[in-house]
Structures are given as structure tokens and as C-alpha cells.
């Protein structure tokens, strides 16, 4: 993989409007800050190479290098990424609380904290409508961060801060873009001698798209007092609405309108199931109260096994036809996104000066795009 600096990061990400505001470039240096869903560079740092660029999930992501690092295998473009097992899962009887889906993520993270398998977890909480990065150390704190925020979140700012403060053995829960950033960081691409991998557990959550924080606030502010919002939900199909909760009740907005607030950068993202993680969790289409769980690594496998044994997690087999449907959706996202990125020239790697958003092995691209 190739490493560039902050100048190229601004050029290739901010100026192409590809920043998803994951927070990976923030809290590693004084130059990048996050505000209302976007990363901003306060001053150019002038270095030719920097972690800001090397870890960014929206530029110079080398899928083959990642695949070799994680699986010792080339990147093959399989729809769900590499995984050991797919199951249905939900929080076990030891876990209290109500969840948007099956509570699988909360259960796994809380269990890992409880058993001291990790010393802290980087999660995404919310203040009103605004998603905020959280570092939690107690199992009881996990539930407060449960549920999708539907908005791109600067979660990884808390990961960087915790790592800077010396924390190790951290869990991180994030969307596919965030998992890509974390995976790149774990490769230590800038070859820092003092690098220590702070991650003990990477939990990815499925994602088709997230909403742009600023656009959503602007949209809602025109229609209601956005400062009174306490939470949001997008109920499963066929509801086709965004439900916004306030102390007084609920407001509903057609999803058709809300989809216009998806940032352009989500449409070049090839990853639906957070392929670069130990386990990935998503909704179970058609079965309320359950999740889809993809176990990808040995770390993930052992965690799930122990959590099930201890009664923190309940698992069932995942029907083949559901797996096919999921795989079909993931493949569709890959094809659509690669095609879209290709149309914008974001995949070009045909000469030395090209800095693609993603480096995809040409044979994989050829196969996917026909």
C-alpha cells in the first residue's frame, strides 16, 4: 500500500467530498479535528506521509494488502468477506435491556468487559441527534450505546485518544468504513517502531449507508425544533419512514426524502458487512429480535463460544436461503459501489501519480463488473 500525507488527504478525501467523518484522522495529531460529522484539517502538517492518510478508509485502501495481512489470502471480492461461520444470534438471558435488534453486539461487548477479555470498549453513543464517540470500561455502560445511530459517527476519535492515553486490549464497534480504518491502523502502515496494536476485539456492524449529520440536522431543523430530539429509528420494511423521537412524542419523515441526505461517499463503499472485523453483526431480515452474526476470526469464534456457554448470547443456525439473500444484497452493494467509484475515477491505479480511493485487484474488479 502507498502512504501519503495530509495534503493528499485533503485533496483526495475532503475535496472529493468522500469524508465520512469516522474520526480515524482525529486525535493522532493536533491538525485534525472533527465537528458535526466532518473531519477538518486546521493546518497542513507538511509531512509527506502520515497516519491520517494511511489509516483513512476513503483513500488508498489496498484491499489485497488488507486481505493478506488479515487472512494471509488475496482479496477475492466475496460478497460477505471471509468468515468462519454465519449464525442467528441474540442477547442471552444474562443480558437485560431492550434492543433495536437482537442485542448481540451489546451482549458480546458487555461479556468481554465482564470477563476482562478487554479493558475498554470504543462505542457510539448519542447526545440528542448527534452521535458521539464513547470509551466505556464497565459492562453496565454498554447498553446506553446500543442501537444504530443512522448517522455517520466520529467513533474512532475515542479509539485514538484511548490508544494515546496508553489503553490496550480495546474493543471497537463500528461500521464497515470504521472497521476498514481500524484494520489499516492495525497493519501499522507507517512502520512506527513504538506501535502496539491497541485492539483486542473488532466488532463490525452491517451498514448500507449512513446519513450526513449536517444535512440531516438542516433537513429536520426546517421541519421541527431539532434540539428537542431524543432519538431516531428506521423501522424495518415496509415502513419506509424515519421516526424521530422527542419528549412530546414522535415525528415521521418519509425515507424517500431522508435517502437524499446520504452522503455521496456511502455510494462508493463496497462493504456491507464490515469485512475487516472479528465478528460482524446486522439485522436479521424478517425475524424481529434477532441478529445475523458473522464470525470471521478465531478471536471472534472463541468469544462467541464463551458468551454462549455463559448465557450471555443465544445462537441458532442461520437459514441457507437467508444467507443467500444477504449475500446477494452485499454483492449488489459491492458491484454498485465499485461501478460508481470507477465512474468517478476513484479506482484508477494505472499510473504512478494515481491515488485511488480503493485499490482493487484488477481481476476481482473485472469479475465483479463484468
Amino acid at each position, binding site marked *: 500500500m502507498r502512504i501519503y500525507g495530509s495534503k493528499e488527504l485533503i485533496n483526495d478525501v475532503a475535496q472529493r467530498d468522500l469524508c465520512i467523518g469516522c474520526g480515524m484522522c482525529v486525535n493522532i*495529531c493536533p491538525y485534525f479535528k472533527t465537528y458535526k460529522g466532518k473531519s477538518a484539517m486546521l493546518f497542513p502538517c507538511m*509531512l509527506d*506521509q502520515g497516519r491520517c492518510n494511511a489509516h483513512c478508509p476513503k483513500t488508498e485502501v489496498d484491499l489485497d494488502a488488507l486481505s493478506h495481512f488479515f487472512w494471509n489470502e488475496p482479496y477475492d471480492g466475496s460478497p460477505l468477506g471471509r468468515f468462519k461461520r454465519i449464525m442467528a444470534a441474540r442477547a442471552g438471558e444474562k443480558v437485560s435491556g431492550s434492543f433495536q435488534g437482537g442485542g448481540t453486539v451489546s451482549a458480546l461487548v458487555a461479556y468481554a468487559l465482564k470477563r476482562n477479555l478487554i479493558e475498554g470498549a470504543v462505542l457510539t453513543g448519542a447526545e440528542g441527534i448527534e452521535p458521539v464517540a464513547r470509551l466505556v470500561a464497565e459492562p453496565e455502560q454498554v447498553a446506553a450505546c446500543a442501537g444504530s445511530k443512522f448517522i455517520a459517527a466520529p467513533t474512532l476519535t475515542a479509539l485514538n485518544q484511548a490508544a494515546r492515553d496508553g489503553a490496550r486490549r480495546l474493543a471497537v464497534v463500528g461500521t464497515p468504513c470504521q472497521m476498514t480504518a481500524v484494520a489499516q491502523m492495525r497493519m501499522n502502515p507507517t512502520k512506527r517502531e513504538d506501535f502496539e496494536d491497541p485492539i483486542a476485539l473488532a466488532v463490525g456492524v452491517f451498514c448500507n449507508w449512513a446519513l450526513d449529520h449536517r444535512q440531516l440536522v438542516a433537513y429536520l431543523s426546517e421541519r421541527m425544533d431539532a434540539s428537542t430530539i431524543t432519538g431516531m429509528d428506521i423501522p424495518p420494511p415496509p415502513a419506509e419512514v424515519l421516526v424521530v423521537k422527542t419528549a412530546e412524542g414522535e415525528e415521521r419523515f418519509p425515507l424517500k426524502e431522508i435517502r437524499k441526505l446520504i452522503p455521496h461517499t456511502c455510494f462508493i463503499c463496497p462493504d456491507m458487512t464490515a469485512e475487516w472485523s472479528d465478528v460482524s453483526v446486522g439485522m436479521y431480515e424478517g425475524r424481529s429480535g434477532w441478529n445475523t452474526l458473522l464470525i470471521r476470526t478465531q478471536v471472534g469464534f472463541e468469544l462467541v463460544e464463551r458468551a454462549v456457554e455463559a448465557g450471555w448470547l443465544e445462537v441458532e443456525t442461520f437459514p441457507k436461503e437467508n444467507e443467500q439473500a444477504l449475500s446477494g444484497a452485499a454483492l449488489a452493494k459491492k458491484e454498485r459501489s465499485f461501478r460508481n467509484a470507477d465512474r468517478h475515477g476513484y479506482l484508477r491505479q494505472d499510473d504512478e501519480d494515481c491515488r485511488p480511493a480503493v485499490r482493487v485487484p484488477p481481476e476481482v474488479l473485472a469479475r465483479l463488473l463484468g
Partner: protein
Amino acid sequence: MKTICDGRSGDTRLMQGNEAFARGALEAGLSVVAGYPGTPSSEIVENLAKASTVRDIYVEWSVNEKVAMEVAAAASFAGLRSAAVMKQVGVNVASDFMLHLAESGTRGGMILISCEDPGALSSGNEGESRPFAKLFELPLLEPCDMQEAKDMTKWAFELSEEIRNLVMIRSVTRLSHASGNVTLGSLPEIEPEARYKHWGTPIDPEEGPITTFPVHYKHAQMQQKLKQAVTRFEESPFNTYEGPENPEVIIVTSSACTLYSREAIRLLGVADRVGLLKLGTTWPLPPRLMETHLAKADVIFTVEEVLPFLEDSVKILAAEISDRIGVKKFHGRSDGTLPTINELNPDLVAEGLAKILGMTYQAVDPTYTALADEATATDAPERDLAFCAGCPHRASFWSIHNALEMDGRQGFVCGDIGCYTLAFLPTGFSTLKTGHAMGSGTGIASGFGKLDRFGMDQPVLSVCGDSTFFHAVMPALVNAIHNRADMTLVVLDNSGTAMTGFQPHPGRPSDAAGNEVPALDIAKIVRAMGAHVEESDPFDVDATRHKVLELLQKGGVNVLILKQSCALCPEKKGKKLFQVDLDASVCFGENCGCNKLCTRVFKCPGLQWDPEAKAARIDEVICSGCGVCASICPSGAITKKEVA
């Protein structure tokens, strides 16, 4: 305390030009002086303020120059001798009143001293105010040295009383801020009595109300007064000629350019070929005197700074009397014999004169210039124009800049005049994007703040100092609030008129002479106006950035007051708030994660890069102990400890 009152008649003293102006005013029996600080004028009022401890005079730093002139005019109307003092831009501010004053006339002797800044050494422009004398039909005097500064000031009061109108004196930096020998006159023993006589008719100059009405009558009076002044100018000892009776070239000059011209003649050794007509009374020109001298030569070289003001007057006059003096060839700033911008100096005048005489003159050997340029480039340390160590403005603009970048909507700051003007440079992180007159930043922001209907979605801020707030920002802020503009004013309150030397202003608890006076509270004022007000300590960069970010999201008019005294103010100077230390072993240096943030970007002069250690270090001598760098250091290498 030593004051300009020291010294007896006949004593010769080394005096700064501004001290000489002040001494001249005292010798004339001045009772009231009012001004607004501005380089190079400030020392006149400051010296008179010191003198007020031993002489019964009233000295005022006014809220702005217009009010200063009004305050001085009131004294004149009451029969006292008074002066208004300001720099060239101040005359613009005062000019509205000045036009009316010129037409209404004065009673006690009243002068305006305008100290100007050719070359804009301490100004945001290279303007000048002499054209106001012509515009308002007022007599203008230009002293050429310190003795004349004193003597002409004294004479100006007499002339003003004689013609019952304002007399304008123009100085320049090289006169106001240079020093020379002055032979003193005596200070009069007077007991002036102030009484405004208003019981006559409006055309009664002694006891009538003082107004511009009836306008035509007063205008005619005004022109009559000017003619009277010209009569006195014809005989004035301040206009002199030196040189041969039939020179090839006559230099017509005034002010500090007299000295440059004299030196140029000597440098070229052309005293037998060139005459020097030095004018102290430059508007209106005395025609008889001019005719006598212009008749002597066919070539006229006018030497002056900034505009070709004198040159134009000479040309007009020469045209009017060309049947008697013949056709002349003119040189000066208009035809490029002299540069049309910047200050003059003896070399430039000599170069111009040599060109006219067909001689060659090279002030500096080109080899020397080349060597000097090379040495400057390689041997001299690189130093930007920068805020002082510990300057609160650096911290304020750090927070404002970072908030704007984080906000990400290409917001910007409209600035005006003060030390903070430097924020258009890297020392202020290039944060200022407009810069004009006092208070203009806020007026401009008020205008930008109404452009949303045309699609402008950039947040707009303005900044002003505490003195500027009172001087000219208040009306602009009223405008913004009343017209529902969306903007944020940041008041950089450093507790005084810092740039010109900590003169007090209406927000301070003492006046020019050190008397206790009520201090007006900026926060209360803007709150009463109807703005949303926040306050923060600029040294707390995180809290300040947070406040700015919050205000950027709010509509309407917001005011953020950032209060922290100037690092050089008398109460703070030399005292450190914190002992600041830097652990080079912790410093990230040039690595990813910092790359010299403190010395490359923050750039406080108290921080230095040690290229051998590859770490920053603190220059103990320069560090003023504000502690802000400890907040911005990403590695924790910089620490601060409160000084007990």
C-alpha cells in the same frame, strides 16, 4: 516628574518633534487639548497630560477624533485656546465636523495637529490630510524641524484667533518622532476664563451663537478669513529661500522634505545651480512670495510626501501668473521624477534632482547592495512580523481560526485597525480576510450578514479591540442588530489602547491625566443593545474555540468578549503567570503527530526550534509565561506551573 514645562525662556533643549508641538501649545497658553491615540501623534497629548500635573490645562483622550475635535471646539467657543490632535486617518473621522467648524468659525485660538505617516510605517494606508485644508478652505502650516514645530504651533494660535477659524498643522513621522534642538520661549502666566457668549445674532462673531447659518454669509466669511491668512503668509518667516539668485532649478518643498532637499543639494554639490524655496505655509500659497521666487528659474522641482498637493498648487499658481513669470517645466511626484508612493529620503531626492540636472547619482554601490541582499538572505534569522510573546491575540486567533476550520463552511473574519490587524499574516493564522478603517470590520460583517438571500452560507465574524469598540464599532453593531444581520463580533479586549501605548479609553477606570473616571462595561452595553453575549478567557483556547463554534451556529448578532490584558501592559509586563517548561525528550519534534506545531504554526517567539536536539525549547528571556503553548502541545512536552 520631568515635563515639557521644564526649562526657561532662551534655554535650548533636545526635544522630540511631538514634545516641541506640545511645548509650543503651552507657550501659546493652551487650555484644552483632546485627541485620539494614533502613531505618530500620540506623544503630543501624552506630554500635555504630564504637563497637566503642573499647569492648569484639561487634557482628554476622546472616544474618537471627531469627538476630540468637538471637545476642543467647545473650549474655543468658550474663548479658550485649544487643540485637537490626531493622525492622518483621524482627520477623516473628524472631517464631517471639521467642514462645519470651518464654516461656523472659532473664537479662542484653535488648531488641529495632524501627524501623518508617509510610507505607512504604522498605518493601514498611505493617506494624507493636507487636501482637507483645501477642501474646507482652511489655512495649512507645515513645520520642517523641531524649532519650527514649537514656534509654528504658537503662531498658529495667534493666526487662528486673528481670522477666527481653525488652523491646521501637518507633521510627519520623521518630524514627530525625530529629535532636535529647540530654543524655548516662556510659558505665559494666564488665568483663562471660559464663557460661551451666545446672546448676539448668528452673524455676531463675538457674542452670537456659533453655527454654519446663514450658510452663504458664513461661507463668504470663511473665504475672507482665508484671504486674511494669505496676507499673513506673504510675510511669514516660515517661508524662506536659500540659493543663487538665478538658479537652474528651484526646489519647492516643505516639512521634513526640506531636510532631504537640503541634503540632496549638498550630496550633488549643486548649491550654485539649485535654489531651495522652503514653505511653512503651504495652503493657500502666498502668490506674491511665490511669484518672486518662481520667476528665478525655469525648472520647478516640488519635493513632498504623499500626494502632489503642493505641486498641484504651484502649477495652478504658475499658470495664473505665467504672463509674468514665463512658462515653467515642472518635476515632482506627478511626472515620476520622485516615486509616487512611500516615504522620501535624501537619496531619492538626490536621484530625482540629478535626473533633472542631467547628472548621475548612485546612492549605494550595486556590489554592496548585492552583498547585503545575499547576507540578509543567508545570515539573518527569518523573522515574520509577529504578535509578541504572550500576546492574547495569538491565542484568540488560534481559537477563531480553528473553530472556522472545524465549522468547515469557509467562514471568515472581517478586521480593522489595531495590533490584531497582523492576523491577516501567519502570526494570526491568516484569519483576517478584510481590513479597512476603525470599526469597518463590523460594518462589513453587518453587510455580509444580510447576504443569505443571495445564497451566502459562510459564517461571518468581525473583530475589534476594546478602544476601537468605543471609537467606531458601536454604530456598526447597532446597525447589524437593527437590521437583523447574522454575524458574530469578537471583542479582543486587552485592557487599553495597546498598539499606541496603553492610552486609556472609555472602558478604562482612569483618564489621560490619571484621574478616576467611570469605566463603561462593553458586555453590559452590547447586552443592552440586544446582542447575545458570551465571554471567555482567550488563554483558555479550548473553551474559547468551543464558544466560537457555538456562536457560529447561532443566527442573529452575537458578541464574544475575549478579555486578557496585553502582555506589554504596565500591570503585566515582566510578570509571568506561569513558569513554562519543555521536556525535549517528550517532544514529538518533526514526527507524525506534531511536526513542530509550536514553532512552525503557533509561532510564539518564546518558542524556538532546536535543530540539533530535534525538539522545541523555550526561550526563557522572551517567554512571558502565558502558558498557552502548554495547551496546544500534542505530546505533553510543554508544562506550565503557576508562578506564586
